[in-house]
């Protein structure tokens, strides 16, 4: 019987699948880190509530996150991103088990990019307001409220860190998904 032989698997594919599986596990771990970061940001911003023991005619004596609509948007955006990340853990586990999936990886990249945009929008809008709260603006006569509300200011500044960290993790997630797509 001539040249028709049963083909065997190309011997170079086993380490490639192994690297892809390792990258998928890294993706899963990064997602968990991003969940923690964005959830911490949402909670840190959402539980702000500072009351000053005195009051004057011009300045309010209480500061909460929903006094500024931008901060409300920040909390909502971080919550949405956290919920999306929890849901996408299932898809990430699926990618660990089945390294050859391509269409689902493209779908995941699309949603990851959209969530990256949402997260960076929330984080940077809140950062603009936090900067304004710290420095004020003499041209527009906007007063720096941080001089009165110290603890509120520290809280809102610290909650930005988790959100920006989540942004970096998202960039890494998209990068690893794209790497896996191009290596097959």
């Amino acid at each position, binding site marked *: *019987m*001539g*040249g*028709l*032989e*049963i*083909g*065997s698997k*190309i*011997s170079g594919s086993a380490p490639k699948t192994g690297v892809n599986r390792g990258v998928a596990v890294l993706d899963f771990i990064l997602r968990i880190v991003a969940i923690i970061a964005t959830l911490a940001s949402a909670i840190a911003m959402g539980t702000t509530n500072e009351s000053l023991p005195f009051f004057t005619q*011009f*300045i*309010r004596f209480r*500061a909460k996150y929903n*006094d*500024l*609509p*931008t901060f409300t948007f920040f909390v909502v955006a971080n919550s949405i991103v956290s919920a999306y990340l929890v849901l996408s853990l299932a898809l990430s586990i699926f990618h660990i088990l089945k390294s050859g999936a*391509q269409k689902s*990886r*493209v779908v995941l*990249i*699309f949603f990851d*990019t*959209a969530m*990256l*945009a949402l997260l*960076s*929008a*929330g*984080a*940077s*809008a*809140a*950062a*603009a*307001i936090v*900067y*304004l*709260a710290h*420095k004020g*603006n003499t*041209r*527009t*006569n*906007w*007063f720096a*409220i941080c001089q009165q509300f110290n603890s509120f200011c520290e809280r809102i500044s610290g909650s930005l860190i988790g959100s920006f960290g989540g*942004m970096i993790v*998202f*960039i890494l997630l*998209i*990068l690893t*998904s*794209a*790497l896996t*797509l*191009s290596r*097959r």
Partner: protein
Amino acid sequence: MDSTKASGETAINMPESKSTKAKTVVYATTKATPLPQGGGWKRGVAIFDFILRICALVAALAATTTMGTTDQTLPFFTQFFQFQASYDDLPTFTFFVVANAIASGYLVLSLPFSIVGIVRPQAAGIKLLLLILDTVLVAFTTAAAASAAAIVYLAHNGNSNTNWLAICQQFNDFCQRVSGAVVASFIAAVIFIFLVVLSAVALRRH
């Protein structure tokens, strides 16, 4: 070698495998050659990518120039209000102009890479590089647009809790220009998202 035709099964006489790898045996040769339709489809995606880049360049340039040329002077002045408004009065708007300028510069530099992607649809390294840089730019452009949008929202509505006054009531023309620039920047950010997804679709190997 002849196969037995008495049992009615057809057999294909395959030539000896000429594969250079000692361990692998190829028994279905049609899969090894790339399909011509695959190259054509990828070329269409690359052309669409190039067109989207031009659109994003237009949007980012429009945002930069619209914000950068704001300069409104009111014909009167009072004790409390500044009578001149320009983009560098607010550091957030300065960041906006710089970020959109960087995005425009990146898009101009990435056009030749996109052309290479059209000419050679199988080049995966270039597509991967563009995808990574596009992702970073998505975050960067969205950050610039959203922070400027937060300040514009504040300028339109003010905030009674923090005693911040709505300056748009005085500076109408400045506010309109700035709002238009923010919209253009958001359009550029959305186009960047499409570029990332397009690069991901084009990276797939069949």
